[in-house]
């Protein structure tokens, strides 16, 4: 290993890999934008579009409610316990725990954590559904009938996500705060009255706006990125699995990146 010089090898590898990475990034980004552009056309049949949209609303909204319910409750409960564990000073009133729980849940946990989970649940479903339709030629069958498949298959998913995911995040916020209250009571940390007093302290409505704004951005990512991966699958069952995994990974990374960017810009 006399020739092994990390200072030389690493930049060399990067120099050769970068053009490929750059090309792939711009290729995917360009195709993604073209897909979004292709969605905007007048639906062939408004009634069918509406039916598909409602089906997606049920799939995304009702279908994910169970997992959102469980996550939110435990998220609130654990947050209360951990904040109580850290706020040991007798000078800090107990109601502060509720105040911190409220802001943590509204600003971060309800939108981001819920959306990360939804990226897995909804994202993989969208990617595998579209991927399966592509592989089994169902999308080709619709194209031949003269249907704009991007408009008929992808647009309702994105619209449904933009409506249902913010609703789910609102529910997650309420459930999280409620879970926090119950965990506080059950653990003997603070009473219900103290918790409610804390919830009302220094409440800022802007936080709700911020959470909702984030939820719209994340909802768009959760529906559009897996749609792109699923719609462009080539091959068979193995490729559907790969597309599904890539869709979830890319969606999660984008959610975290946008979370940081929005916090930096809006807070």
């Amino acid at each position: 290993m006399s020739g092994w010089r990390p200072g030389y090898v690493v930049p060399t590898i990067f120099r050769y890999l970068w053009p490929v990475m750059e090309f792939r990034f711009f290729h995917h980004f360009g195709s993604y934008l073209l897909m979004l552009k292709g969605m905007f056309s007048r639906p062939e049949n408004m009634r069918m579009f509406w039916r598909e949209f409602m089906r997606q609303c049920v799939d995304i909204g009702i279908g994910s409610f169970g997992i959102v319910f469980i996550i939110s409750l435990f998220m609130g409960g654990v947050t209360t316990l951990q904040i109580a564990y850290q706020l040991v000073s007798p000078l800090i009133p107990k109601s502060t725990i509720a105040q911190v729980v409220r802001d943590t849940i509204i600003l971060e946990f309800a939108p981001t954590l819920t959306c990360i989970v939804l990226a897995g649940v909804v994202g993989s479903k969208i990617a595998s559904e579209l991927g399966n339709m592509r592989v089994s030629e169902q999308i080709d069958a619709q194209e031949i009938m003269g249907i704009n498949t991007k408009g008929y298959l992808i647009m309702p998913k994105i619209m449904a996500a933009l409506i249902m995911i913010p609703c789910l995040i609102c529910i997650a916020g309420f459930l999280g705060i409620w879970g926090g209250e119950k965990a506080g009571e059950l653990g003997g940390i603070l009473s219900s009255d103290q918790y409610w007093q804390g919830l009302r302290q220094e409440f800022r409505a802007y936080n709700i706006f911020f959470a909702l704004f984030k939820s719209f951005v994340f909802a768009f990512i959760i529906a559009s990125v897996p749609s792109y991966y699923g719609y462009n699958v080539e091959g068979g069952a193995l490729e559907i699995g790969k597309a599904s995994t890539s869709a979830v990974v890319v969606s999660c990374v984008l959610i975290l990146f946008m979370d940081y960017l929005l916090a930096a810009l809006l807070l």
Partner: protein
Amino acid sequence: MIELVNIKKGFGDKIILPDVSAVMETGKVNLIIGTSGSGKTVMMKCMVGLMPVDAGKVLYDGKDFTNMQEHEKKEIRQQIGMLFQGSALFDSMTVEQNVMFPLDMFGKGTLREKKTRVMECLERVNLKEAAKKYPAEISGGMKKRVGIARAIVLNPKYLFCDEPNSGLDPQTSLLIDKLIKELTLEYNITTVINTHDMNTVMESGDHIVYMYQGRKQWEGSNKDIVFSKDEKLNDFIFASEFLRDAKEMRQMEMFQDQNWRNQIKKD
């Protein structure tokens, strides 16, 4: 009538169709035959517009499909019915809903009229009893017949079938071939079938195009094909020992028959 004028298609450096011209006649079953990888499927996908051609034209009754605006293409596409190799039925819909789908999307009339039309088509393919079943609950042959019913429900002018007999037993294959032939004559459709099934060739090949390495090697009807002198075509048709023996026996019979007739004439 569908005309292909100097079609060229390639993927990267690989040229699949170097220069193909052919005419698919109205009211006839037009077959595209050839070994796997000879460019049949690419040619069919170019014809229906699922793949853009690199050069050349596809004319539907004299109208240039390749250079049409998207809304004009949609009009032509609504006159196309296609049966896919894997049937491409929509998994989430029943047989009845699958056949109803093109009618719902583009058909005019009341729900009752649409249902009547769907039942007519299902009766035509002998599947009325399976109307309420899902694609997963029916056999491969039944799926193909549902695919045919869906393809003809809008009274298409052009019917494309991609390997309609693949994965079917000989009896069901024959049934599908007969059905396609009957429908072609009944509705005076331009039918194009992509196959390498010799039964289909002999049963329903009114007009046959034999593809070899992306080029049109031979053209004729099922009456001419057995007597063709084209070596590559003969290698394809008489691929098995059994068929070669059968051909020799048939030629011998014809020779003996001719001798016998000549003998009678002399006597």
